[in-house]
């Protein structure tokens, strides 16, 4: 499929083009994919009651959903904040309208106003047509949370999208892409289906290549008991480009600092698609692999590689889900178990950027920034890192620490338009379970706001490298940069730059 786009296209388009992306749909998960992860295989009679029952359960389990269903006043502050709306002008991609797809059903079945006066408050029955709309537009949301920073009540469309996907899954109407990946992570250990033997092979090959290239034995240890650090990283880092250059960067950092580390075949995936589909049980089960690996290998620290949503899950949820963190109650057995093992002089879990930044600050590793002189670097904040996590101990560490690393390892660093960075950053267009070919059209269009800011930085400042710390951002940009006339090699990881500059 050839999709090309221009950043100025659509600028004079009318504000709203109803139905513009109504036809851009994910593939529905086949029954065997659903069953493999314990989900209802297919949509069958009685789905409507089951969907409403699940919705009722979620309303009781998640205060976010309950409050967000009630509190919206339709003020419209969010309407022009979503990259998919800006790229498509489809009104259903306005965050409030996306939420309304569920809120109208909520009103009809769960509020007196909607039961008594459905027309007046815009309430709507949950018909097959509505379900189809959910499936279309809740898979045109990347759960990036940009809308939520502008909402006067903090309504986060991501929470609504996750609930909708959970309801869809509960009636057997899942998305093929996400659910296949979840199947793979359980069956094989990672999202890309790389089995332990293949993983070892790949890493051995990498060691040999590096030995030739830099003349040092830089190791990529796997399942090594007693290592200090367990590195959990997105599996794309093992062979995709440009991801692998960051993996080499992590290995060089550990090598140069003399920190023993290991990867795990059991936990050979940082990503956790349980987040994307809003399924607590999956989120927890996928995270549990990390606890098992950490306990088995007896590591003192758990460090997470460059992956946006993985960092959100690790930073914000791991302590809740599996006890990686601190501060568990004394009677909280499973929280205590891991917390006794971990070294609390370090934040648990740590981001690889926190590790590298700390080593740079202490002078424990040395770099030569001229090694990156061919680059004018800019930084793309990834949504899950920017708006759903932090790094270090200052509340804006997730913005400052990666930038501080870049400034140390490269001499020319410039910012993109501040309306598009830090907490206001635009999603790459491929997050939240949308990184699949059948959604390429929405992915290309959703990348437009970021591409526009990048284009300005390229033209005004000569930027030729956009660093980022997310595997999905990297994969998405390699695919869509060419559609906007850029080279796909323009995108890469922060640790790719570290790798170039570090002195071994």
């Amino acid at each position, binding site marked *: 499929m050839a999709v090309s786009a221009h950043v100025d296209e659509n600028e004079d388009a*009318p*504000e*709203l083009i109803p139905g513009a992306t109504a036809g851009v749909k994910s593939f529905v998960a086949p029954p065997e994919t659903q069953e493999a992860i314990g989900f209802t295989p297919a949509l069958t009679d009685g789905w409507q009651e089951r969907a409403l029952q699940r919705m009722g359960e979620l309303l*009781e*389990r*998640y*205060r*976010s959903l*309950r*409050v*967000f269903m*009630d*509190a919206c*006043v*339709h*003020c*419209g*502050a*969010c*309407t*022009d904040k979503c990259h998919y709306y800006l790229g498509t002008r489809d*009104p259903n991609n*306005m965050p409030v*309208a996306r939420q309304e797809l569920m809120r109208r059903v909520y009103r009809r079945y769960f509020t*007196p*106003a909607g039961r008594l*006066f459905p027309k*007046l*408050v*815009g309430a709507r029955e949950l018909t097959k047509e509505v379900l189809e709309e959910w499936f279309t537009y809740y898979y045109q949301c990347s759960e990036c949370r940009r809308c*939520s*920073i*502008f909402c*006067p*009540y*903090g*309504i*986060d469309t991501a929470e609504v999208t996750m609930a909708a996907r959970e309801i869809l899954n509960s009636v057997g109407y899942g998305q093929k892409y996400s659910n296949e990946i979840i199947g793979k992570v359980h069956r094989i250990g990672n999202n890309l289906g790389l089995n332990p033997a293949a993983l070892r092979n790949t890493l051995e090959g990498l060691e040999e290549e590096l030995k030739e290239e830099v003349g040092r034995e830089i190791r990529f240890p796997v399942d090594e008991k007693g290592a200090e650090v367990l590195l959990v990283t997105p599996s794309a880092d093992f062979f995709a480009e440009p991801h692998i250059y960051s993996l080499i960067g992590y290995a060089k950092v550990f090598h140069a600092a003399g920190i023993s580390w290991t990867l795990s075949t059991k936990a050979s995936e940082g990503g956790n698609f349980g987040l994307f589909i809003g399924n*607590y049980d999956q989120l927890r089960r996928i995270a549990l692999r990390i606890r098992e690996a950490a306990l088995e290998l007896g590591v003192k620290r758990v460090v997470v590689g460059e992956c946006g949503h993985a960092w959100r899950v690790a*930073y914000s*949820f791991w*302590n*809740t889900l599996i*006890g990686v*963190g*601190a*501060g568990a*109650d004394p009677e*909280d057995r*499973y*929280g205590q178990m891991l917390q006794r093992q971990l070294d609390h002089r370090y*934040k*648990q*879990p740590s981001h690889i950027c926190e590790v590298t930044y700390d080593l740079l600050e202490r002078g424990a590793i040395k770099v030569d920034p001229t090694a990156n002189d061919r680059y004018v670097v800019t930084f793309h904040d990834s949504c899950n890192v920017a*708006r759903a996590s*932090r790094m270090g*101990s200052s*509340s804006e560490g*997730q*913005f400052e620490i990666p930038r501080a690393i870049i400034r140390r390892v490269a001499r020319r660093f410039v910012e993109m338009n501040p309306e598009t960075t830090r907490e206001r950053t635009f999603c790459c267009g491929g997050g939240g379970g949308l990184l699949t070919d059948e959604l390429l059209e929405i992915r290309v269009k959703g990348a437009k706001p970021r591409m526009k800011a990048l284009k300005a930085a390229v033209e005004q400042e000569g930027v030729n490298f956009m660093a980022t710390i997310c595997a999905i951002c990297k994969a998405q940009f390699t695919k869509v940069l060419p559609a906007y006339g850029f080279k796909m090699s323009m995108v890469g990881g922060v640790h790719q730059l570290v790798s170039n500059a570090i002195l071994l």
Partner: protein
Amino acid sequence: MLVLFYVASAVFVVGLVLKLVQYGRTPAPLKIPTTPAPATRGGVIWRLVKEVTVFESLFKGDLLLWLFAILFHGGLLLVTVRHLRYFLDPVPEVIVWLQPFGIYGGMAMVVGLLGLWGRRLLIARVRYISTVSDHLWLLLLLVLAGSGLLMTFVTHPDVVAVKAFVRGAITFSPEPFPSDLMVALHLLAFFVLLVLFPFSKLLHAPGLFFSPTRNQADDPRERRHLASWAAALEREKAGAEER
């Protein structure tokens, strides 16, 4: 009118309390503050204070909307303070001193409401997401504010009698309702608002305080956060593993 006074107040109080209990009892299983977020309780309170008083997020999002929203809500606050004179006896000095500001408040409300309605009608995106009830709310609030201003500047009802009626109602020693159409309209509109409050988007006011993206501290690595049902799930799974 007295009966309506009690019915409306009862529906408002009971409905709102039930909603607050529902919000309070519903757990937030995961840490989801929109970051950057404060790491401490005190920081969270400060964040909420800023949201409630100066609409910080809205300010970031849409300046014109923020202006109308501040005019309306700020005006509403001043008007509410002015109306305390009908409930309190004797009227505290500070409320007396603030009386004239209530009138400016009423004007600000009307300007704000007209601005908000203008947006709803003129901006295609906002028009698209507006329901019939959104327009009716603006109408109701304009009736309330408009009738209030009309009484201040044009019809001048017997405020002493109005106060006697209100004081009588809240002290359960009823006084007659002054026969004044404008006062009746003003009060009826207010009762409609009270009755609908717990069942409508007016829940945005209490909702903000319960919004996990705004009221959670950003300290997940330091403190293990476990919701009741998640803790129960832990115990159940642990039990299953041991068996």
